[in-house]
């Protein structure tokens, strides 16, 4: 089996990692004997591994770092860029407790019936609001436990890029297929496929109102004419960017193209995308100076392909990716190169990400620890650092909300802000300290943390060992070191000391 041969090196890597951790994360023996210049090179390589581990995943651990060290950065990254080659039966077991994840739309509507619907209450699993909670639980569980970490990071990125608010109406049911069938399969695939999958998803069609958009005089009831909402955000937020060169007239033309792209009414017992030709505007359209001949639904598919291949789209997406992976203010030269890779590869996301994660800008000293973790990144990384066992995730999902970004609930189509100046607030910092304590003290229901581990680490190597374990590869500031030592001298419990590391400024960064 292909899978087994691919998995084996991973397991070997893990074993090696554990061995190294026991000796205090020391470099390999041959490095210790090496000449000073080589030692400097090794230190640089270690720093690069730690940096890659913190940015390409939801949080570095000594085990992960050892895995990358064993495989080499390039090989590890290549496998992460091909997540379908990474088997993860344990993850599948963890997710099996969330029934909504495997359901199709009619099963979801029957299992989580809308108020007043005809569904038999004896078949009900729960209320509609439970559906997005199950999906958020899946996302958080994957962020903590999935072995294909980069795929999770990219799914999170695209889910925010193609934001939908799963808080009301059929969006609550539609979020399952949106994440499972539209976002995840294309997270490292072709941008054009991802764009089409979101355009055809009931979640997006509902969230941005396109399900109602009809040619004037063609639709019925509350779908009697154009709705510009999706047309505008498609260009402003999904593809070209606000400076992408479109006009208000283009917005109207794009809205005309997508008339008739709608969803089956939930009362029908299913929630699927359908194209209703009777609502479609059959006239000719002109978008960005390009004529689109009447062709029913194909007009929209053609337009999506056009938008996916526009240079403005490549620039916009490249800039967002570089900002996510490298720095809030992205280095322009890298943005330009990532854009070129996007254009040359016909929007192959894995190649663009590979170019960014392999760049000198990514590894530059100025990029290290330069990003502040988002609420999801902070909670997931704290749970990873604590080697938490996430058995039932909803309470942990609430912690993410407490930090200011409730999962799947960004109301504005822009999604959540990702830069430090927008993410970091006083209230948010207080919530981060709070979460640090809850995680380190095993205080999150549904999640198990072995608190005895903190005492063991402290016994073996004091606060240095605790820091090396929770913040591997990160040199703590003297202030953080002193604060920990002082707290320890003052009688702080092992769990509080671990919480302080998770509350440290270094831990807020990646």
């Amino acid at each position: 089996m292909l899978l087994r041969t691919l998995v084996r090196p991973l397991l070997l890597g893990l074993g090696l990692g554990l061995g190294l951790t026991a000796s205090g994360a020391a470099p390999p023996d041959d490095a210790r004997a090496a000449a000073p210049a080589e030692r400097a090179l090794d230190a640089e390589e270690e720093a690069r591994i730690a940096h890659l581990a913190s940015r390409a995943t939801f949080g570095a651990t000594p085990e992960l770092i050892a895995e990358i060290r064993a495989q080499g950065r390039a090989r590890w990254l290549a496998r992460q860029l091909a997540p379908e080659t990474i088997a993860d039966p344990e993850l599948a077991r963890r997710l099996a407790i969330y029934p909504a994840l495997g359901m199709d739309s009619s099963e979801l509507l029957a299992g989580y019936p809308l108020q007043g619907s005809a569904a038999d209450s004896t078949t009900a699993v729960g209320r509609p609001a439970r559906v997005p909670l199950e999906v958020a639980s899946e996302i958080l569980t994957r962020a903590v436990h999935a072995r294909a970490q980069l795929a999770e990071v990219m799914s999170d990125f695209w889910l925010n890029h193609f934001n939908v608010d799963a808080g009301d109406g059929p969006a609550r049911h539609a979020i399952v297929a949106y994440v499972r069938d539209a976002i995840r399969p294309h997270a490292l695939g072709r941008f054009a496929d991802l764009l089409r999958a979101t355009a055809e998803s009931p979640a997006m069609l509902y969230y941005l109102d396109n399900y109602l958009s009809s040619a004037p005089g063609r639709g019925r009831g509350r779908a009697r004419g154009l709705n510009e909402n999706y047309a505008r955000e498609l260009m402003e937020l999904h593809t070209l960017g606000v400076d992408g060169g479109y006009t208000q007239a283009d917005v109207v033309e794009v809205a005309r193209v997508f008339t008739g792209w709608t969803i089956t009414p939930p009362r029908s017992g299913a929630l699927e995308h359908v194209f209703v030709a009777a609502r479609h505007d059959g006239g000719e359209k002109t978008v960005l100076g390009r004529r689109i001949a009447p062709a029913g639904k194909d007009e929209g598919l053609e337009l999506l392909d056009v938008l996916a291949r526009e240079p403005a789209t490549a620039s916009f997406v490249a800039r967002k990716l570089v900002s996510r992976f490298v720095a809030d203010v992205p280095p322009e030269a890298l943005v330009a190169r990532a854009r070129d890779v996007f254009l040359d590869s016909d929007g192959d996301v894995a190649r663009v990400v590979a170019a960014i994660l392999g760049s000198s800008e990514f590894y530059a000293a100025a990029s290290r620890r330069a990003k502040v973790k988002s609420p999801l990144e902070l909670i997931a990384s704290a749970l990873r650092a604590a080697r938490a066992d996430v058995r039932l995730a909803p309470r942990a999902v609430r912690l993410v909300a407490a930090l200011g970004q409730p999962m799947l609930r960004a109301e504005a189509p822009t999604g959540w802000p990702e830069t430090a100046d927008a993410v970091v607030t006083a209230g948010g910092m207080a919530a981060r300290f709070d979460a640090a304590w809850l995680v380190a003290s095993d205080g999150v229901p549904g999640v198990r943390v072995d608190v005895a581990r903190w005492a063991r680490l402290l016994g073996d190597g004091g606060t240095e060992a605790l820091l090396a374990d929770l913040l591997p590869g990160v040199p703590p500031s003297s202030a953080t070191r002193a604060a920990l030592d002082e707290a320890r001298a003052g009688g702080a419990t092992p769990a509080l000391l671990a919480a302080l590391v998770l509350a440290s400024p270094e831990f807020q960064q990646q």
Partner: protein
Amino acid sequence: MGDVRGVGRRLFLKGGAVAMASFGLGPRFLLRAASAAPPRDGAVLVAIFQRGAVDGLSMVVPHGESRYYERRRTIAVPRPGGADGALDLDGFFGLHPAMASLAPAFDAGELAIVHACGSPDPSRSHFDAQDYMETGLPGDRTATDGWLNRHLQSTPRQDASSVRAVAVAPQMPRALAGPAPALATTSLGEVAFGPPAQAASARAAVERMYAGRDDVLGAATRDALASLDVFARLDAEPYQPANGAVYPSSELGTQLRDVAQVIKAKVGLEIAYLNVGSWDTHSLQGGASGQLASLLRDLASSLAAFRADLGTELERVCVLTMSEFGRTLDENGSGGTDHGHATAMLLLGGRVAGGRVHGDWPGLAAGQLFEGRDLAVTTDFRTLFAEILVEHLRNPDVAAVFPGFSYDARSRLGVIA
């Protein structure tokens, strides 16, 4: 959450407060006896951003315009007089009937409206237009700090212990972003950290870890620690709104209630910034009832309760509502409205020149519309904001707050008496 006490504990709902209550954690970290500070009772601005672009044409209805009724066949608010009709203000404009609770404020001269107000920038992007309104620099995407932060910068206070500017939000709104300290929080009072016996040591450790940092992490942590002391004082007693005021149990109602408590505590609050969402009514907007009506009812009854609760304190308070742009005159095909241009803004306060709809009305005829489709802007939002700055907050330095914008006594709208 019915009997939770005080602003600190309940502060601004959502997020942490809910999480903590559910975890049942008692001991609180970081609380320190508040030092007795002299009362501060200067002017207060309560800014409420209606995110998503409120339909000004149905919030403050130009019922004297037949075009409004021609272009909105199913979602127009009926003319005054009939059931569900607009509440006539001056024979031409009427308040949405769901806002009846605010009508007494208009009649008492404490509610003013500025119609056809908005940005000189034509953007119909929520994101850009919100940014422009909050930086106060329309069209300039390089701007980083907000107009209210520049106000704070240009009028520095010696007393750093006060809570001068608070955003009740999980993210710092752009209007308050910048070098001057401001607090964004939804949940400060609920922070629990470590076993009770070690709370002091935990706080000291956090303080030390972040002390020397000049980045956003350091600044936010220092703000958190400093303001906790203030909120701890407020947290000591349950809050009872005055004058029989009853706030709606909505997010906005709860937040305004908390703001009222902080104002009355005289701890130095000058700017409170609130967000209220869901105004992006592309579909099923409704007319006299429906989606928009529910949002407006909540807004109006929250403001009405706030007015009643503050009583005479309203004399030093000005509430300003704003939104990034308005919505199309035409109803769209989905019983909603799309992104437009000008909208209406409300002012509530003791010194507001209320009982009037201010601003020039551009008309709704085809030739009078912006780009042939939307209500035109006749009042640059900066004219309104600058007047509040000068006449209410008593900061004459308009050039520092709105660089490049010319404002003088002649451009005054006269919204502040």
